[in-house]
């Protein structure tokens, strides 16, 4: 009898907890009513986090709007928008001249990547070229770049990661990096660099904490300002691509306006990117 009683109790509590969960969702209501439809985005895999945050922020206000995201890669996204297969193309690089003929690129955010080393490491500055050489395995000892006599351990992200793609394309080390560890999250990279005095790593600027030291690149410190001004080199633009002269659908235009407005800045920061200077 006791057992049955406790079972009923347990079920009751679980049910109550579940009901509680359900209620939260229906609570917040408001925002622009009437806007409904689907916005399709297609392109850069690196922009996934940014788009997810923008999408959440936008659909919170516009409950009837659905934002889809198809992670195909920058070039595929640019092609998709030029062929009209999606509303907004996403590219984690600037448009090339021939693409600019019929497409318009609008920078929504900047991807700033900090180069981090262990706090005990004496190296304060690295040039972009030195960073590339370290990751390619051409420089293997810290003493060659002004540090102590110790081997360098290159920490990076897994294949497919947007940060890795960004870092490798900026330093022009695509497919040539000799990693000593490939980790699956920014947090892991920071943690590993914090624990290993020989390590060098890269991570989105927003997630770098004071457990590690960010080196200056070509003498420029990585800050929101230097990234916005373009002085800090390890950065690239996150671009929304639209067809020049073709009007976006009402919902797509609303999403585009939202993403490029100051309203989106905090979301972009949360996503680990740097907002554009306005």
């Amino acid at each position: 009898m006791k057992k049955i009683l406790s079972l009923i109790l347990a079920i009751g509590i679980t049910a109550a907890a579940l009901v509680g969960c359900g209620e939260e969702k229906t609570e917040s209501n408001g925002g622009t009513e009437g806007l409904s439809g689907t916005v399709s985005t297609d392109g850069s895999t690196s922009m996934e986090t940014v788009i997810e945050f923008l999408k959440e922020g936008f659909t919170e206000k516009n409950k009837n709007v659905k934002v889809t995201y198809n992670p195909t890669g920058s070039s595929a996204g640019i092609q998709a928008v030029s062929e009209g297969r999606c509303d907004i193309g996403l590219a984690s690089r600037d448009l090339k001249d021939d693409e600019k003929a019929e497409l318009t690129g609008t920078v929504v955010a900047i991807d700033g990547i900090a180069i981090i080393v262990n706090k005990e490491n004496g190296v304060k500055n690295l040039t972009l070229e030195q960073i590339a050489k370290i990751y390619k395995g051409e420089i293997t000892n810290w003493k060659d770049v002004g540090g102590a006599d110790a081997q360098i351990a290159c920490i990076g992200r897994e294949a497919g990661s947007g940060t890795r793609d960004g870092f490798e394309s900026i330093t022009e080390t695509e497919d040539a990096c000799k990693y000593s560890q490939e980790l699956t999250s920014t947090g892991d990279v920071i943690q590993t660099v914090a624990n290993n005095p020989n390590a060098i790593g890269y991570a989105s600027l927003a997630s770098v904490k004071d457990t590690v030291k960010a080196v200056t690149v070509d003498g420029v410190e990585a800050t929101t300002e230097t990234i916005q001004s373009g002085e800090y080199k390890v950065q690239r633009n996150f671009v929304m691509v639209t067809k020049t002269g073709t009007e976006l659908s009402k919902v797509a235009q609303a999403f585009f306006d939202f993403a490029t407005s100051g309203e989106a800045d905090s979301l972009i920061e949360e996503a680990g990117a740097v907002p554009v200077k306005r």
Partner: protein
Amino acid sequence: MNKAKKLLGLFEKTMHILFAACGLVAVAFVLIITGYLIISGLPAIKEIGLKEFLLGKVWASTATDPRFGILPFICTSVYGTLAAIVIGVPVGLLCAIFLAKMAPKKIAAVFRPAVDLLAGIPSVVYGLVGMILLVPAVREAFGLADGANLFSAIIVLAIMILPSIISVSETALCAVPKEYEEASYALGATKTETVFKVVLPAAKSGIAAAVVLGIGRAIGEAMAVMMVAGNVANMPSLFKSVRFLTTAVASEMAYSSGLQRQALFSIALVLFIFIMLINVLLNFVIKREKK
């Protein structure tokens, strides 16, 4: 009276169906998972080519000219598992002998729960401790740039397989009839002689089952290994960062797409086949024990 009997009969029948249904659930899931793995794993193998996939030495899934060779993962998994067995089996076996035959009752009463607890520790905890303590220690001890390598993974795996080896082989040792030992003592053999010459040979198939179980556990482990092995797709070498079959799937799944994703399913299929083979081996060993 008759009514009660009828009711009871109905109840029995319902319960019978319930038992059968629950039994079916397990079988159904095995079939679904097997089917799904085969269906989603084959296309990439077909596209890449079985030989290139299994024997290719380069894995560069997101390169401009992608290569999908999983030989580094297979070799790493095999080497890592074998080395973990080589370290873990002697330690585990001797511990089991201690618990079953040597230890005073009071000490065994403390040791046994400790071993059970070791089995209950989640693998992510093994990984975490390995990452924070073992990896830096390996780096310092061998003067390496980085301690996340095959060696660290082997140590973690060897510790992780201990509990299964200890508990299964202890059961096997305890199952050896007392008369064997008594006969051995009567002939003037010492305790150590009795253990190694009488008890161990008598329990050998049970111990073999323990070893196979340990292999299964080691080859299927992902989380702990991912945190200490470095995860770079190198051909295995003791002090190099390596990637196992399990971690190859786990580490790239999050952002994968297209052929890369399909290839990850193919790796899962290969891993699944490995585990199947080990299970078949385990069944074979257990069956032989029964005979």
